Structure formats: structure tokens, C-alpha cells
């Protein structure tokens, strides 16, 4: 008797099941993710370079740090570009912002003798203000963000070159490393972590040692650059924000259909302006790390970086039209881009052909990505 009772309840459940819900198998759910194409792409790219450049030093510790740093650079600006793109907007001023923030820091520390921590805070404040202005103009004018931020690409670049020439007669301002010596927050951008670990690794022979000059005996890899730590932190922050918070849903909604989002009470304008600010923030993180690492800022830093950020995001499976994408995908896109760019060198490709291959491999990655997504989600 009990058996039949349970059966009835099951049947009842079956009947009252909401007809608006569609059943999806767990396997299918696992595969329907924007970053799937990027995961496959990353595996392919690594397999490719293990075959053609396995013995070239690319996968020795020094080589790994090299392409990790380049990938981390792409990742830092890609996280900002990714969230903004999911929110339905572009930011083409990222590259110019990198040059601008760098010059602001270098000018204040070297030329005006202000402490580095103050210069860094001012650079971030200025960048956030310009990001907010970008967003405000897009919202207020209703112009495409493509146009507004394209204008800022030129405004910021021109202003940067003008300011640096007008104040120092140079376009490269050096001496920041000396000026930032012992600063309480500068190490957050230019320092290296786990140097003890690498000394140990070099002692047991995994990492090579310098053989000449004042650095003789030290490991060739000094530590994990803060740039890489920043990239990882931003990826985690972006991923959690996007997938685990209400604000993340607002980002998707703003980019998917902003009018519908407004009807259900999403503060679309605020979301978009905040994302423009976040994009500017990421560019400034990039710039500050670069200035602290190399000890100088140049007015032409960051040329074309806005496109590299967008490329990473698109390889990562985000849609150019907004409302769809993932931070993990963008990070993998940055990894693929960095590994391909640096890997082709290790593989010994002739320099003019090198960019042809870069283009071809990027195209293949995006095609593969799109195909896998369509195949699995059944979208057209």
C-alpha cells in the first residue's frame, strides 16, 4: 500500500511540474558555458607548442614566466573589457589610459617629487573619473560607446604626449624606480613574490642561475611578478562578481536588453557607468605595474592594447553584442593570446610571417569557439 502511495505523489509531482521549465541533462549543463571554446582552444594551443617548441626553452621556468607575464598583462585589461562588454558597451580608450596613467605617476614622482603612494592614488582617482565621464557621456548622449571611447582614445593620447613634452621636453620619463624606493604601496605593483622559493628551486637545479656579473649565483627567475598576482586577483573578483552576486545579474541584464532590465528595476545607467570605471581601473593597474617594473613611463605605452583586450574577451566566448560571456573565458582568451604571441617566437617563426600566424591562430580559435558553442547550445 505504501508503495502505491509514493507512486501517486510522484505522479502528482509530474503533473504539477511547471511547464515553463525545460529539463537539461547535467552533462549538457556542464558544456553550455561561454568558456568551453576557450578551454578547447587553450588545450590545442598548448599541445601545438609542446610539439613545435618543446625543447626551445619555452617550457623552462624562465620561458613560462615570460608568457605568463604577457598573458597576465592581457588578462588584467581583458577582465575590465569583459565585464563592460557583457554590460553591452566597449571601451576603446584602454590603451590610451595606460599611457596616461603611467605618465601621471611618473610626472608626480620624478618631476614634482611627490611620494609614489600619493601619485598612484591620484592616477587611480583620475582614471576612475575619466571612466565615469566615458560612461556618463555614453548614457547621456545615447551615442554608441564605440564613438565616445574612440574620442577618448585620441583625447587621452594627445593630452599624454602634450603634458609630458610640455613639462619635461621628453616623451619618456625615467627614474620612477629610484623615486618609489621604500614606498609603502609601490611594491604592490612592481614587487615579486616567493623569491625564497625560487632560490630553493635554483639550488636543487630546477631553475638556472645567473653565471656572470653582480647577479651571479642568483636564480634567473627572481619570483612571481605582482602583475601576475593582480591578474589572478582581478579574474577571481570579476568571476565572483559576475556569477555569484545580484550585481552580476544586473550586468548580464543591462547588456542583454537594457530596456527590459530597466522595467524590472535594474539600475542600468549605474551598472554601465561602474563598468566603464572598472575598465579604467584595470588599465591603471596595468599602467602602474608597468611603471613600477620598468621604472619609466612613456607617452606611447599601451598602443593597440584596447584591441588586444577585446580580442582576448572574444576568444573567451563573449558576444560582441553584450549580455553573454564569462570572465574565466576572457582569462583563457588572454592566456591563448599570450602563449601564441610568445610561443611563435620560441618556435622560430620568421618575424614577418610571425604576425600572419598570430592572425591565423586567433581566427581559428574564434571559429572553433563559435562552432563548439553552437553545436552544444543548439543556437544559430
Amino acid at each position, binding site marked *: 500500500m505504501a508503495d502505491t502511495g509514493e507512486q501517486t505523489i510522484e505522479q502528482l509531482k509530474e503533473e504539477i511540474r511547471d511547464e515553463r521549465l525545460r529539463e537539461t541533462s547535467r552533462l549538457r549543463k556542464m558544456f553550455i558555458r561561454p568558456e568551453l571554446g576557450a578551454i578547447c582552444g587553450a588545450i590545442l594551443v598548448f599541445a601545438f607548442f609542446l610539439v613545435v617548441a618543446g625543447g626551445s626553452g619555452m617550457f623552462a621556468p624562465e620561458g613560462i614566466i615570460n608568457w605568463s607575464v604577457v598573458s597576465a598583462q592581457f588578462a588584467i585589461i581583458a577582465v575590465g573589457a569583459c565585464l563592460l562588454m557583457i554590460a553591452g558597451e566597449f571601451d576603446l580608450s584602454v590603451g590610451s589610459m595606460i599611457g596616461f596613467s603611467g605618465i601621471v605617476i611618473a610626472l608626480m614622482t620624478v618631476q614634482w617629487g611627490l611620494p609614489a603612494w600619493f601619485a598612484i592614488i591620484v592616477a587611480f582617482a583620475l582614471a576612475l573619473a575619466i571612466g565615469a565621464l566615458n560612461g556618463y557621456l555614453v548614457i547621456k548622449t545615447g551615442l554608441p560607446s564605440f564613438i565616445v571611447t574612440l574620442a577618448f582614445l585620441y583625447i587621452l593620447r594627445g593630452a599624454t604626449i602634450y603634458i609630458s613634452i610640455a613639462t619635461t621636453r621628453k616623451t619618456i620619463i625615467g627614474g620612477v624606480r629610484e623615486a618609489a624606493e621604500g614606498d609603502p604601496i609601490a611594491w604592490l605593483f612592481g614587487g615579486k613574490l616567493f623569491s625564497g622559493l625560487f632560490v630553493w628551486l635554483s639550488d636543487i637545479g630546477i631553475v638556472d642561475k645567473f653565471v656572470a656579473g653582480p*647577479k651571479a649565483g*642568483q636564480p634567473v627567475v627572481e619570483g612571481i611578478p605582482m602583475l601576475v598576482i593582480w591578474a589572478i586577483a582581478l579574474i577571481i573578483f570579476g568571476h565572483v562578481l559576475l556569477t555569484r552576486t545580484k550585481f552580476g545579474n544586473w550586468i548580464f541584464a543591462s547588456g542583454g536588453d537594457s530596456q527590459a532590465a530597466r522595467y524590472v528595476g535594474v539600475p542600468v545607467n549605474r551598472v554601465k557607468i561602474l563598468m566603464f570605471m572598472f575598465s579604467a581601473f584595470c588599465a591603471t593597474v596595468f599602467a602602474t605595474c608597468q611603471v613600477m617594473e620598468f621604472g619609466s613611463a612613456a607617452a606611447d605605452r599601451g*598602443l593597440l592594447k584596447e584591441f588586444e583586450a577585446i580580442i582576448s574577451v572574444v576568444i573567451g566566448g563573449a558576444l560582441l553584442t553584450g549580455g553573454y560571456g564569462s570572465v574565466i573565458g576572457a582569462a583563457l582568451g588572454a592566456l591563448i593570446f599570450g602563449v601564441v604571441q610568445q610561443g611563435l617566437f620560441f618556435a622560430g617563426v*620568421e618575424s614577418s610571417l610571425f604576425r600572419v600566424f598570430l592572425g591565423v591562430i586567433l581566427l581559428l580559435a574564434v571559429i572553433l569557439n563559435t562552432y563548439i558553442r553552437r553545436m552544444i547550445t543548439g543556437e544559430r
Partner: protein
Amino acid sequence: MKKLLTAMGVAVAMAAQFVMPAQADGERFVLVSHAPDSDSWWNTIKNAIAVAGEQMNVEVEYRNPPTGDLADMARIIEQATASNPDGIIATIADYDVLSGPLSNAVAKGIPVITINSGTEEQSKAIGALMHVGQPEFAAGKGAGEKAKAAGVTKFLCVNHYITNPASVERCQGYAEALGVELGDQMIDSGQDPAEIKSKVMAYLQTNPDTNGILTLGPTSAHPTLAALDEMGKAGTIHFGTFDLSSEIAEAIKSDVIAFAIDQQPYLQGYLPVVILTNLARYGVVPGNSINSGPGFVTKANIALVEKYAGEYR
């Protein structure tokens, strides 16, 4: 879908054929320049390393940051170091950015020769074997001295690579030799020929008393020639330029350009490869830096130069 995947597989396999490293019978050197892809002047250096590579039976790879971003160049040097070549040849386009990666290469036991941009002192500080290049300020000053002798009082310096400090030094050296302030006489022309031409024309229209022009290479010299031609001023303004090309040679012959400063890039590419090869094979190396320029090319010696302009000169 299957077809596409097969096609992609074939494409990757074909790409793999192309990217297989060349045979490793000779030594392998890497030359890293700061020049963006658009800069044609470096073609002479590419020819030089091709010739030297063939003669010495070594492999020389040429690398550059596509947009001319020097931070990217630093990454390329780090990358070159990680691939353990037998020697690195690099420019010191910005000492702050490049000294770290270059001195790391030296510390790793890789011989480094610096060329083109940078000074002998910077080269020594990095620990490089030598510098093969032309002292820029002095070269600009040399050009200014010639201009002063020709009566130049007010000039225009067309700078197509404003973000490279060496280019500004040339204009400053020129101004110093004339005994005037550089001020607004240097313009940031950009790299696009049409843009350079119209900027030069606009400058000459607003500053009609300009009687001297200095261009910093073929990139800015060619559009400037076109601008002078269009304004009917060709031959009326004392015109000096850095570097050579067939158009510049032609203009020297027809008295439009007074002189071209040849820093002999061929030597900057050729000599380091030969020197590094001899160091690797026999342990011999010259003890001092080498000045590849400045050499002045004028109507008097143009015939010798003309034949190889843009190729080996």
C-alpha cells in the same frame, strides 16, 4: 562541421611545418630592435643580418615590437634570453626599460652587443661587449653646423618618431649648433605620409621665414620633399636629413637636399653578427665600441652611395 575540423587540422599541420626551427648547425643570434612594423629603415639591417648570417653560416632572428612599444620590446628581450641564444643584439631605445632585461641576459652568460640607439656609457653599464652606433646628439650637432655655415637661422625639425628620445636629441643637437632654442621648431609629424606632408606645408605657410629643414629619416623626408615640391620651395630651403633612400639620393643629386647623414645601418647589423660569431668560435673580440656614423652623403660622394640606397646603405 567535420569538414571544418579537418580543414583546421590540415592548416595546423601545415603551420607546424613552417614553424619548425631551422637546422641548428650554426650559432643562433637574436637581434631585437625598437622599430614598429611600419618603419622601413630597418630593412637595411635585415639585409645586413641576412648577408652576415649566410657568410658566417649562422642563424640570425630579427624581432621587434609591432607598435614600437618599448615595454613590449623588454618582454621580447626576456623571451630571447629564455631561448638561450649564442648572442643578443639589441638597441637601447630606453635605458630605464631595457637595462634590466639586457643585463639579465649578460648575467646569464649570453654575449650582448648594443646597436643604433643608446650610448657607449649605457652599453657599458649593461655589461654589453660594445656599442655599434652613431652618437645622436653629436650627429644632430654636425648637421646643425653644416646648416649654420649655409646661413640657416630658423628651421623646422620634422620628427616622425617623437616618442624615441634619440630623435629629440637630434633636433636638439641641430638647434644647439645653430645657437637657437628648439621650442616649436620641432613638430610631431606622426608616421602617415599624407599627414606629414600637410603638417609640413601648414608649418611653412605659417612660418614663411623658415630657411632650414631637418628630417629624421625617409619616413619624414619623402613627404617633406613632396610638400616642398608642391609649394614650389624645392631647392630654396636648406634641407638636411638623416638616413638614405633612393628618393633622398635623387634629391641630393638635384640640389634639393644638401646632405644626408648616413649612420651606416648596414654596419650596425653586419658587424655584431660577425663579431659574435668570432667570439663564439675563437674567443676573439674587439676591445672598444664602434662608431658606425655619422657619415655625410653630399652631391660629391653620392654616386658611390646611390647604387645601394635602401638596400645596403
